[in-house]
């Protein structure tokens, strides 16, 4: 516990310390670059300690900044405290991991600097109690995202641009949504906002929602993530799309459905959210299934899992929201864990292409065990954490319509199938010639993985702890209806889940038989009629809204160019000629003598006098 007087200072520190430290990291000369990682680790740890110390406080404060309704107002309450603490925890682990991983890479210093900025901005966005301030931090994250992908190398620049454009457009939507919401509510203070989600309010909700779900990486705004996966450094993938973006995206989505707007269960918007969630989880996992690259496969899962959360939050019933939030933290844990195992593999073998991997389980046992635990979690196997959150979401989904449950269950089936394939292809099977000499990763890389795997088990065994964390958040919005929530896992749903998982194993065995090895275990699905056509088109990026928009943009720009040339003639040739001839006429007039000027003056005086007297 910490004295109340220090609360404003500690809140400011949480935001400011990483931002300041990021500048310091850049200033450290390259000669001592080895300590850059250490600095960012320490800073993340310090902020983590601060937020643990102030965790239980319920507190808000503000001081004026620019004026015009834009004040710095921060609010610490259980939800924001939890998200901030989690984000800092991930920052600690990822920076510890990166110390070894980033060693000797290009732009090492920039990477740590971006990591710290991301941490600071995230804390700011989560703690902000003013929508405009939140927007400020949010846009900052966009810029950092661009920089962080771009440090990956030359190829990365293209991906970075893509990520920037997609997120820029959706952030624009969010910006207009926020302005609209502020206009409707006559305030930008989040804790004072309470809008109905109808009429203009619905429009504002949808606009803000687009920003939030795009940040968390939902369809159809997801397409930059798989591209970035190949280009950007792996710790970035583990930190940003793996953990941070889920945390703040879903955090904000929950805030708008619970606090800012009152989304009632069964309303059109709720159904819309559920459809987005369902389709995202299903399509993304289908894409994940056929990937032949460790990182790319994981990145599609990063998208797919968001679908579960959106589905959960979108149901707008307490169990669904708690399930969604629980899944958010679970996913952040195991997804960054998985990305870190990918990082460990890449560091040791120099590749993440599944065709060049195989049989690593014996060479890298600890990595393999961590992978196993996290993969079982993501597949939703009892008693790991993923099982419980998914069960809650199923429970909520089946109450809203069978179709949503079917989508979620199908997604679960494919998730399990793709991880069976991934584990089989990477860690089992025959060891490749080129990988004969590899060793297990160093300790500083293993610790974060182990910690994350341990959390997977912890949240699985003590799932009631997680429910306790999220209960007060949801409770605040449902006061008077249910004072306490008791969730039980429905035995029937659990049984169905078990059957689905068993089916996935069977499917995998069938695939291995047909495809000769683990790598090709999903080929029978890939080559199935109709589905194969969709896959072919998807691989050609037919369904990528970014590519479609870019093609449309080209046609549009050609038209604009034609118009522009015509307008240009008017502005560049015609206007200039007219202006200059007026100018030189005036100049000629001014070559006169003083009596002429005097006459102008007298005439002017006469005009003024006549005007005034009349």
């Amino acid at each position: 516990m910490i004295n109340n007087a220090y609360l404003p200072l500690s809140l400011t520190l949480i935001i400011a310390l990483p931002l300041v430290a990021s500048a310091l990291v850049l200033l450290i000369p390259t000669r001592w670059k080895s300590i850059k990682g250490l600095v960012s680790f320490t800073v993340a740890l310090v902020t983590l300690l601060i937020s643990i110390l102030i965790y239980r406080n319920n507190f808000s404060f503000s001081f004026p900044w620019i004026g015009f309704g834009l004040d710095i107002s921060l609010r610490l309450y259980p939800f924001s405290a939890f998200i901030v603490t989690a984000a800092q925890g991930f920052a600690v682990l990822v920076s510890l991991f990166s110390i070894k991983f980033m060693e000797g890479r290009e732009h090492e210093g920039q990477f740590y600097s971006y990591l710290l900025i991301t941490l600071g901005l995230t804390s700011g966005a989560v703690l902000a109690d003013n929508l405009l301030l939140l927007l400020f931090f949010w846009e900052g994250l966009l810029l950092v995202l661009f920089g962080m992908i771009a440090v990956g190398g030359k190829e990365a620049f293209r991906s970075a641009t893509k990520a920037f454009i997609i997120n820029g457009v959706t952030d624009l939507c969010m910006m207009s949504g926020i302005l609209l919401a502020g206009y409707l509510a006559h305030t930008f203070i989040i804790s004072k906002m309470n809008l109905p989600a109808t009429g203009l309010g619905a429009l504002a909700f949808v606009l803000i929602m687009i920003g939030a779900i795009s940040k968390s990486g939902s369809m159809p705004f997801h397409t930059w993530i798989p591209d970035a996966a190949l280009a950007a450094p792996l710790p970035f993938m583990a930190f940003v799309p793996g953990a941070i973006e889920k945390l703040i995206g879903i955090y904000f989505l929950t805030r708008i459905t619970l606090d800012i707007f009152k989304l009632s269960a069964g309303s059109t918007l709720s159904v819309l959210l559920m459809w987005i969630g369902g389709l995202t989880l299903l399509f993304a996992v289908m894409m994940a299934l056929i990937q032949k690259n460790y990182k790319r496969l994981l990145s599609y899962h990063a998208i797919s899992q968001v679908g579960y959360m959106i589905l959960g939050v979108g149901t707008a019933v307490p169990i669904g929201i708690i399930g969604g939030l629980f899944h958010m933290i679970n996913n952040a844990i195991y997804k960054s864990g998985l990305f870190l195992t990918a990082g460990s593999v890449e560091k040791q073998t120099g590749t993440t292409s599944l065709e060049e991997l195989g049989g690593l389980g014996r060479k890298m046992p600890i990595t393999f065990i961590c992978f196993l635990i996290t993969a079982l979690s993501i597949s939703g196997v009892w008693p790991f954490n993923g099982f419980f959150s998914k069960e809650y979401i199923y429970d909520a989904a089946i109450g809203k319509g069978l179709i949503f449950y079917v989508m979620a269950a199908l997604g679960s089936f494919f998730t399990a199938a793709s991880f069976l394939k991934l584990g089989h292809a990477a860690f089992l099977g025959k060891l490749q010639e080129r990988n004969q000499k590899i060793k297990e990763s160093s300790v500083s890389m293993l610790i974060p993985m182990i910690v994350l795997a341990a959390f997977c088990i912890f949240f699985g065994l003590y799932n009631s702890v997680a429910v306790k964390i999220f209960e007060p958040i949801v409770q605040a919005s449902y006061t008077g209806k249910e004072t306490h929530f008791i969730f039980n896992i429905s035995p029937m749903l659990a049984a169905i889940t078990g059957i689905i998982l068993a089916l996935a194993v069977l499917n995998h065995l069938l695939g291995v038989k047909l495809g000769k090895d683990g790598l090709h275990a999903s080929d029978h699905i890939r080559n199935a009629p109709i589905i194969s056509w969709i896959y072919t088109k998807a691989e050609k990026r037919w369904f990528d809204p970014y590519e479609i928009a870019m093609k449309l943009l080209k046609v549009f720009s050609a038209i604009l160019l034609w118009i522009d040339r015509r307008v240009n003639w008017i502005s560049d040739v015609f206007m200039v000629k007219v202006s200059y001839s007026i100018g030189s006429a005036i100049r000629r007039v001014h070559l006169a003598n003083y009596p002429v000027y005097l006459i102008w003056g007298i005439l002017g005086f006469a005009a003024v006098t006549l005007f005034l007297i009349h």
Partner: protein
Amino acid sequence: MILNIFILILLVIAALWMVMTRSLLRSAIGLALVSLVLTIIMFRLSSPLAAVFELSVCAGLIPVLFISTISLTYPLSKQEMMEHFKARLRRFWYLPVLVVIVGVILSLLKIKPDITLPLPESAKDVRDVLWNLRPIYLIGQIIVLLAGAFGVVILFKDSKKDEH
């Protein structure tokens, strides 16, 4: 009353002479004359302070400055003067026309100056207002004089030296 009108007519004649005469020297003397007549008017309006000021500065100092400056110039010949006159006529033939037009416009607009003098109750004497209550005028006047004199000195004194 008659005396006042007579003095005013004198003032107009002096001013006209000052403006119309071709010789700069005579013009400067005319200026002194105008100031002199003005001084008389001021005395008659019983504001001796202003009158003394007018007499010393406008009738005394300024014409002296003018005359000393004019003495540095040389006169034009008769022919040149005629040419200047003609050129001036050519250039400003429209001035009288303009005056007539403005006059016609003004008379067409029929402005009737319906003047009522809204003098405030505690109206002070004009002389009192202008001279007795505001010492800043005096400071201002002194600065004007000094600045003018200073300007004339630095602008024209050196050129006098150059010529001699």
